[in-house]
């Protein structure tokens, strides 16, 4: 029976392989052999096809189960709803993962495992940005993130420890669009001069109109409910010059999810951003005035192509004083984000350290002048 998952094994020693960002190749954990993505794709094309077929067949079987049978099966099942079980091709252990999981690792043998069926047919991503930065670089980035933060509790960086670090290919929708914008502005120019005992300000008012189009390309919106939108927005932008056609050979060694937020829902977020930027772009052409304010706008969005892409993200979580702190790093550019706890005691100390000497200096100056 064909298994639904693929375990990328070294052609030289059959050891597990994983994708390495720095080299852009798949490397064997045991013998150190390395292979290009193209080489592995060629070697594993047949295996992946069989896994996809098995995945599809399993899906059909599941769909054919009657509601009564499902109730019976569900009652006897150990797995919660939304979870799926696969068999590890390396050690035979049962892999239980989220229904959207597309790449993971076996908790028993640790071998990287890909579920090619999750990315077959309509679900296949158009493109992927491979990981460029390693786990070690993410850990270093976290330490750097603490540096220079004057209000960070000292105990936080001393006592907290990294609970989990995982490299995840996050599903994104990338939207192309052309925005038609017709914007009315009120603009002014002002001159000021003195006339006797009066300061006179003459303000000339103008009605300004700008209309035209703004073309946007690949505006991203993450398509996974597991990923917080604000974190994914904050690690933008990615360098799209390094987008590559999707291949599951980039996945071994990382986690990956298929999208569970559809294109239409994600488009709403992208449209809000493009509409606002279109008005900003029009306003950037209103120059030579001392003030410009938007009076009215008519913005129409013409959606273009939506690309389904996987983006590399390092997720790091720490725990301190029973509270979890999540950090995210762009796996391509290294942009690192994550809110840190604030020490109110340190904030007050800084406040006092600045305000008290300044008050003393001003008091002395006033006394000397007075």
């Amino acid at each position: 029976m064909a298994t639904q998952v693929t375990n990328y094994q070294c052609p030289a020693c059959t050891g597990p392989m994983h994708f390495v960002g720095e080299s852009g190749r798949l490397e064997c954990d045991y013998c150190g052999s390395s292979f290009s993505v193209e080489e592995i794709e060629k070697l594993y094309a047949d295996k992946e096809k069989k896994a996809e077929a098995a995945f599809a067949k399993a899906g059909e079987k599941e769909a054919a189960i009657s509601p009564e049978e499902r109730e019976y099966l569900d009652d006897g099942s150990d797995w919660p709803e939304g979870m799926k079980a696969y068999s590890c091709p390396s050690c035979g252990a049962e892999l239980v993962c989220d229904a959207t999981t597309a790449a993971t690792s076996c908790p028993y043998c640790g071998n990287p495992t890909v579920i090619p069926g999750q990315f077959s047919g309509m679900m296949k991503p158009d493109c992927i940005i491979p990981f460029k930065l390693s786990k070690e670089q993410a850990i270093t980035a976290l330490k750097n993130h603490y540096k220079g933060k004057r209000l960070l509790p000292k105990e936080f960086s001393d006592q907290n420890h990294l609970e989990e670090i995982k490299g995840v290919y996050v599903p994104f929708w990338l939207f192309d669009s052309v925005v038609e914008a017709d914007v009315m502005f009120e603009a002014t120019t002002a001159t000021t001069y003195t006339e006797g005992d009066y300061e006179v300000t003459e303000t000339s008012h103008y009605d300004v109109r700008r209309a035209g189009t703004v073309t946007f390309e690949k505006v991203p919106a993450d398509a996974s409910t597991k990923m917080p939108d604000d974190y994914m927005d904050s690690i933008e932008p990615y360098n799209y010059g390094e987008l590559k056609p999707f291949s599951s050979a980039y996945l071994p060694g990382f986690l990956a999810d298929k999208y569970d937020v559809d294109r239409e829902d994600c488009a709403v977020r992208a449209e809000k951003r493009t509409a606002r930027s279109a008005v900003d772009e029009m306003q950037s052409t209103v120059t030579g005035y001392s003030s410009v304010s938007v009076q009215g706008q008519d913005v129409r969005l013409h959606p273009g192509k939506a690309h389904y892409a996987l983006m590399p993200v390092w997720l790091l979580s720490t725990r301190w004083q029973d509270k979890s702190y999540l950090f995210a790093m762009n796996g391509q550019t290294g942009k690192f984000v994550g809110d840190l706890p604030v020490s109110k005691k340190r904030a007050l100390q800084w406040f006092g350290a600045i305000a008290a000497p300044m008050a003393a200096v001003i008091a002395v100056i006033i006394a000397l002048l007075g």
Partner: protein
Amino acid sequence: MKKRVFGLLLSVVMIFALVIPAMAAGEDDATYQDGGSKAAETGEAYVYDVYGLLTEDEWDDLEWQAEKISKKYECGVYIVTVDDYRDYGSSVYEAAKAIYTEAGFGWGSGKDGELLLLSMDDRDYSLIAYGFGNTAFTDYGKERMEDEFLDNFGENDWYSGFSDYLNISERYLQLARDGKPVDVGRDPDHIDWAGILIRAACIIFIPVITAGVVVGIFWGQMKSVRVAGTAAEYVVPGGLDVQVSEDVYTHTTVNRVHIQRNHDSGGTSVDSSGFSGSSGKF
């Protein structure tokens, strides 16, 4: 010609001012006799009530006070009341200057002194100073003095008003002789609440706001996660195509703001003739 007419008028003023009160004092007031007659004899009177606002006792008391102060501080302190300042000058200030000069007011060779002139027809007054008077009675000091006596004059309480004038003159002369003439920021009788508040605001608010801004920046550094609001970085190169660009002038508005001149620098404004002064109505 004008000067001659002025001299004649002032002579009449002197006769009325010195002789009549002196005669009256001889009848019923010993104190008046001491000061007023002496002034009449020496021609060194300090209170010339030509208009006749004061009783004899009041005149005597004021004259005695004015003489005492003038001698103690070697700076003449004068009071003159007239019907109409126009008999002496084009303005009440010019009239006060003319009377001071023509009557030979002032102490010693420096002609140090001050004069309060009341012109009763239109209820005008002028307070002028000369020589050391300019040092003792600064612009600010004159304003404070006027605050003291003008309320009495407004109520036709002439004696109290002149008495206040003499008392405050004595105090200011004492301070001036001590090297601390009353001026902006140096007024022992007046608590400058506005100045205190401004200083307190400088000492409290500037450090608090500065520290708040700095700590706010530090606080902001702790937050790096936020939802993106725009997509400017995803506009394709040359992706902005402006097809309509109209700039239409509609109108002009003019706003005029009166410039507040700063008079709080202190000191005394002395004119080309060496006098300083202020004037107004009571």
